[in-house]
């Protein structure tokens, strides 16, 4: 076993300030070190997340009572659009792969860096450009875009708001995502350390691999779709304009051919994180490694075939509804498999309850709620009733925030000591978790009921019968806000003043924990020779 990659005399702050470091901002924004790029992403994503949730909070305030005029109708319409665009394209799609994926992928496979470090930096610059263009679209032109994040034609062709700039932002962000995916696939194929066979890859890497394929295969469709919206508006192309023989349904198909797989771009990496965390805190090898790895690939591939379940009411043929409803149900099975495998990993383990595990349990609960309600929407007849109502809004907040969001928070708490070499306050972290969990449910659960009662989404105002649910939901958003604020404060305090964490505070077995925390710039002093799997815990588990 030559897993001792500790660089002699490595600076205690590792890659955060490596010896050859000139210091300053430039050494970050032009660094090709995957860990630095990952942290850059993380910083941007969290900033934009703060912006996005602030908009969410504002929406909730506006919706607190019917007839409330905190926001003008047009403003509300712009706010939910911008909220959706920021959250989807700038936060959750890049979230885990671009930040933790970048930081950890080379560490997990025992490599020096990704295959194309400069391309990696370029992706980040593209991301930044996309973010800036998106912000520009909000503050210039004749008003922020007001189409919803879906940019449905023909409305998006006609509205006078700044849609053209917004879709260009999406186009640029799409390319950033593609290049990241391409980089990851190549890295996983080419740069595995000796002995790092496919079956010794961590499940996080497997999930990144599956995600990367979706990114590479699906995102170009989004690219061309938004380019066409741009061309429709700017060059007057008329390909989707029903008045000129175009068919708006084709737009929806193109959009969802990307955007459904995109939800797996969002969730797969989170599932990978969960699969990596559970065995560590159960002190037990992951149950059903093959099944979990394989189910990621199944989700990625079958998931590409279900897009039109977003269009059951669009007027497409009944046959299409039949087929897409069926496939939607099929793709739910691999998710179920994962859940059961995780449970079995906990079964008869020796469980240590730490903040990362709490967030992981939160993920399992919240994602199950979101996923199971997804089944309602997959059922053709039931979806007709709930489509475009608050039921959908509840569903995707549960899977995205409850799933990807909590998965991301779990990752943040799990790898925090590795990245910063310090530890946050664990009790505060646990408290923040429970507040977040409570807030999330008070915020989003009433939305299911509102949806079943028939409240449509994207309404700046609503009839009185929905008032109660909306009120409870708004109160929930405050609880959630407190929880989030506490969590971020605690992490921030940890970065500043946390106690030194040591190389392996959790007793985990993947490669990155063999390195000092934070890891040095070049990662492994010598490329490690891998002789065991990622979850092979020492026979005598650590007690504390």
């Amino acid at each position, binding site marked *: 076993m030559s897993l001792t990659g500790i660089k002699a005399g490595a600076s205690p702050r590792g890659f955060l300030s490596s010896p050859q470091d000139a210091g300053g901002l430039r050494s970050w924004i032009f660094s090709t070190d995957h860990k630095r790029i990952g942290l850059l992403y993380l910083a941007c994503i969290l900033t934009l997340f703060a912006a996005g949730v602030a908009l969410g909070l504002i929406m909730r305030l506006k919706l607190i009572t019917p007839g409330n005029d905190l926001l003008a109708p047009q403003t509300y319409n712009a706010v939910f659009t911008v909220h959706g665009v920021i959250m989807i394209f700038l936060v959750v799609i890049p979230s885990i792969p671009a930040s933790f994926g970048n930081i950890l992928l080379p560490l997990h496979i025992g490599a020096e860096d990704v*295959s194309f470090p400069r*391309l990696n930096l370029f992706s980040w610059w593209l991301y930044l450009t996309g973010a800036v263009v998106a912000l520009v679209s909000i503050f210039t032109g004749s008003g922020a875009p007001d189409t919803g994040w879906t940019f449905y034609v023909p409305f998006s062709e006609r509205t006078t708001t700044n849609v053209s700039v917004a879709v260009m932002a999406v186009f640029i962000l799409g390319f950033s995502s*593609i290049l990241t995916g391409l980089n990851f696939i190549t890295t996983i194929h080419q740069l595995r350390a000796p002995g790092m066979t496919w079956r010794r890859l961590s499940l996080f890497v497997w999930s990144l691999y599956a995600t990367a394929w979706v990114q*590479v295969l699906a995102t170009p469709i989004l690219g*061309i779709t938004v380019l066409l919206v741009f061309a429709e508006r700017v060059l007057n192309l008329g390909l989707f304009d029903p008045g000129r023989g*175009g068919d708006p349904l084709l737009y929806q198909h193109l959009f969802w051919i990307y955007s459904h797989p995109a939800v797996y771009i969002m969730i797969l990496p989170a599932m990978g994180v969960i699969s990596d965390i559970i065995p560590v805190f159960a002190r037990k090898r992951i149950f059903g490694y093959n099944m979990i790895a394989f189910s990621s690939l199944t989700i990625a591939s079958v998931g590409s075939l279900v897009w039109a379940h977003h269009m059951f009411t669009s007027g497409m043929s009944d046959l299409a509804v039949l087929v897409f409803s069926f496939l939607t149900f099929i793709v739910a099975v691999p998710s179920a498999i994962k859940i059961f495998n995780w449970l079995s990993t906990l079964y008869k383990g020796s469980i240590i309850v730490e903040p990362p595990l709490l967030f992981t349990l939160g993920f399992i609960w919240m994602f199950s709620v979101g996923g199971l309600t997804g089944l309602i929407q997959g059922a053709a007849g039931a979806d007709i009733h709930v489509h475009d109502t608050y039921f959908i809004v509840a569903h995707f907040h549960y899977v995205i925030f409850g799933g990807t969001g909590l998965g991301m928070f779990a990752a943040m708490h799990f790898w925090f000591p590795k990245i910063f070499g310090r530890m946050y306050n664990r009790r505060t972290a646990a408290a923040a978790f429970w507040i977040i969990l409570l807030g999330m449910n008070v915020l989003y659960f009433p939305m299911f009921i509102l949806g079943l009662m028939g409240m449509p989404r994207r309404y700046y105002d609503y009839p009185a019968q929905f008032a109660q649910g909306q009120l409870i939901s708004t109160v929930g958003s405050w609880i959630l806000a407190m929880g989030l604020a506490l969590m971020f404060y605690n992490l921030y305090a940890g970065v500043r003043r946390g106690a030194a964490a040591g190389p392996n505070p959790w007793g985990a077995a993947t490669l990155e924990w063999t390195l000092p925390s934070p890891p040095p710039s070049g990662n492994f002093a010598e490329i490690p020779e891998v002789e065991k799997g990622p979850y092979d815990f020492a026979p005598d588990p650590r007690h504390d």
Partner: protein
Amino acid sequence: MIEAHKDYAGAKLGMWLFLFTEVVLFGGLFLLYSAYLHRYHLDFHHAARNLDTFLGGANTIILITSSFFMAMSITALQLGRRGRCLGLLALTVLMALGFLANKAIEWWAKFEHGIFPGSEHLRALPQGEEIFYSLYFAMTGLHGIHVLLGVGILSFVMILVRRGRVRQEDFVILENSGLYWHLVDLIWIFLFPLFYLIT
């Protein structure tokens, strides 16, 4: 875009993945094309008659030839004949420019006839024909942009070859640019019959 890397296989893999995304990018348009062809079969048929098969055919030949030169330039460098490689690359770029000029003439003629996206003339035509032209401009336009990018990339590679950054022992950049150029060619080979030959 792909940098010099010791890992040849990796660089090639990355390039292939990139080409794949390009294919999918155009794939979206091909999907639209087939959906509309299905719906407006006759209109497409009529509209296609107005395209100049001669110009289109000439461009096809130009591109295929240029692809051929491109391949030859790679072989030349592999054999260590740098001058010949540069010459062939120059020819490729010239042909690409020729393609663009030809395309410009073709588009210009269409504009002269009042055929451009959203024009009065197009609106007066049956809807299917207007859709056909919209697709024509979108797809050949996007392809044209790719040709233009190709010109940029190949000229850049020429500089690298001249400076010796790309050489007999390390020519993966040239090879990848070649792959890109073949893709541009390939896409045109699909576009040509779809627009010019479906009458």
